[in-house]
């Protein structure tokens, strides 16, 4: 296959890795019933922090760790504000997203446009020799491999383990989970923190892998996209990941088209904005009444399966704090 295509595909998997981390992490959080709207700002802050730490200490691993901790800390604020103080998750999340974004610009000022450490490519022996799949998937760096693992791990945890089952129960019907001895709020804290840590890793992946270094608004908009992808992917790790890769594909398409002489007059900003707008439009379409009518054309059983595929269902208790009966 044309090396250009292989390279493009490989870069899609690499560039989508941060969004995979963020959206799968947020999927876990939302599946347990909490919305963490601070994603966009948190990714910025953690990207900056990871880079700054790595630059100062030379340790890329340390950068990732710091980012995970910060991500978890921000998510903790959302959780505490909702569970203990009864504040709306959306309100606190929004304020945090703006605050952390500005914090990243402020604290990151000294680090703008500096060259720093990054993760090197580490092809996996044997696997990277597979024709086509090898170069695309297995000649990447550790963070990208970790993104593959995260998808599988999230899927496995959610659908194959008892704790994962309980987590889903908490997000669907906390009263019933409580009746089975599950500590609802502890579960929500756990997955909010875990999701937050993954969001932190997403940030680190930007500044240490995908878009090296730091600049103001380095990762702009990707947090919102991750949130939209969670809905788009119906809160299912595989579909969410596909959404992330789809987004990556749209971005890659944008870069390819940009170089095409037919589009030479279109400013670059359009290409960078278009994938966002398209994804969100996609989201609007699939949940809208238009799709309803389309689905109505099918038999009930098929309709149900299609609906599951297209829409997924929000965890029924998403956003609602739990009170003991």
């Amino acid at each position, binding site marked *: 296959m044309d090396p250009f295509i292989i390279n493009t595909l490989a870069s899609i998997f690499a560039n989508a890795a941060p969004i995979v981390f963020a959206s799968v992490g947020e999927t876990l959080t939302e599946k347990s019933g909490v919305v963490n709207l601070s994603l966009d700002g948190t990714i910025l802050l953690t990207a900056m922090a990871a880079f700054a730490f790595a630059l100062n200490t030379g340790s890329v691993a340390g950068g990732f760790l710091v980012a995970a901790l910060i991500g978890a800390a921000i998510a903790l604020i959302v959780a505490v504000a909702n569970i203990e103080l009864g504040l709306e998750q959306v309100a606190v999340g929004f304020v945090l997203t703006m605050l952390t974004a500005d914090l990243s610009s402020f604290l990151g000022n000294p680090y703008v446009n500096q060259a720093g450490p990054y993760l090197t490519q580490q092809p996996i022996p044997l696997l990277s020799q597979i024709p086509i799949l090898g170069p695309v998937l297995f000649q990447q760096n550790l963070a990208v491999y970790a993104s593959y693992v995260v998808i599988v791990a999230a899927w496995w945890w959610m659908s194959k383990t008892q704790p994962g089952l309980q987590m889903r129960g908490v997000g669907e019907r906390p009263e019933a989970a409580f009746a089975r001895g599950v500590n609802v709020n502890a579960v929500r804290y756990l997955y909010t923190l875990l999701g937050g840590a993954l969001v932190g890793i997403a940030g680190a992946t930007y500044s240490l892998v995908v878009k090296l270094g730091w600049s103001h608004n380095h990762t702009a908009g990707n947090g919102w996209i991750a949130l939209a992808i969670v809905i788009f992917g119906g809160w299912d790790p595989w579909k969410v990941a596909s959404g992330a890769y789809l987004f990556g594909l749209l971005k890659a398409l944008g870069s390819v088209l940009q170089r095409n002489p037919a589009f030479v007059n279109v400013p670059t900003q359009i290409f960078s904005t278009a994938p966002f*707008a398209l994804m969100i439009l996609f989201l609007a379409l699939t949940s809208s009444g238009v799709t309803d009518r389309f689905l109505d054309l099918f038999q009930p059983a098929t309709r149900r399966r299609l609906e599951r595929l297209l829409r997924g269902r929000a965890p029924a208790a998403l956003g609602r704090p739990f009170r003991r009966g």
Partner: protein
Amino acid sequence: MKRKPLLSQLFWAVVPVAAALFFIALILLAAGANPWQAFREITLGALESPQKWADVATAWVPLALVGAGMSLTFAAGLWNIGAEGQIILGAIFATWVVRSVDLPQVPVIALIILAGMVGGALWGLLTGLLRVYARVHEIFAGLGLNFIATALIIWLIFNPWKPARGATMSGTEPFPEVTWIPRLGSSRLVPLAMVLTVVALLVAFFLLRGTRFGLELRAIGKNARAAFIQGIPTARHMLVAFVLCGAMAGLAGALQATAVYHRLIPRISGGYGYAGMLVVILAAYRPEWVPAVALFFAAIGVGSPRLELNLQLDASLGGVLEGMVVLFVLLAAGLRNRLSHKP
């Protein structure tokens, strides 16, 4: 309901702000800066000269306009994050008027104002339709439309409306002077903009407090189901709220284009859509507190660039200050609520 004693009100208002400042001071120290100096720079930056006061007043306009509009959407329980796009569309429509119409000052400015409101209102209506009929949460609908608005303005600046010398990020050709909204003497103050803002604030205030419509909006915000059972047309009212907020945001955009920059630039909305949301949250969603909070934000916005000049600190410290204050005030309100509910 017992009136909460004044001392208690004061306590719960002052302590979170103090806590926010304290936290920021810590951050500044950790970043190797002097907190006292930083706060001083920001304050001076906003207050040091009459020009700066005028700048603060100018920055106040879009913040207060968006704040006024959002107090309406928030009353109905809606998160109109799409205000940013509504500002842009207002600016675009205003620019279209400037470029297409050849009239003396008074009618052209009247048309500009009208166009700005219509542009923003249309964009707001779109968000509303997506929410009401396509069941897309207004946060995502708003964000998507923001992205589209941004793409639209860039396309316009780089294609049909590009200056003769070639398209750049500095925007379109400057507008003809007849379309500039007049300033007061040699200052940078734009009285008309301020008057319009005050009108918008009054409209928002009286709508919410003094009309049936406002009462019905508030009922929807508190319990949409119960409001429906009282016979309130919830869907229709939500759409109207989006339209009104969009109109105000659009007006802000038109003013930005014709009173401040005198041209259409890509960053015409300047983040005011998002900042406006913070303003309204901090103002506890009340239109009567928006002017003061907007002034606070405007002052910080105007004063912050001095940090770069004199202390080599990034101006985003202003945003950090704003965000931290809102966060702490929110948390404090939640804490106070929790404490008063425990027996």
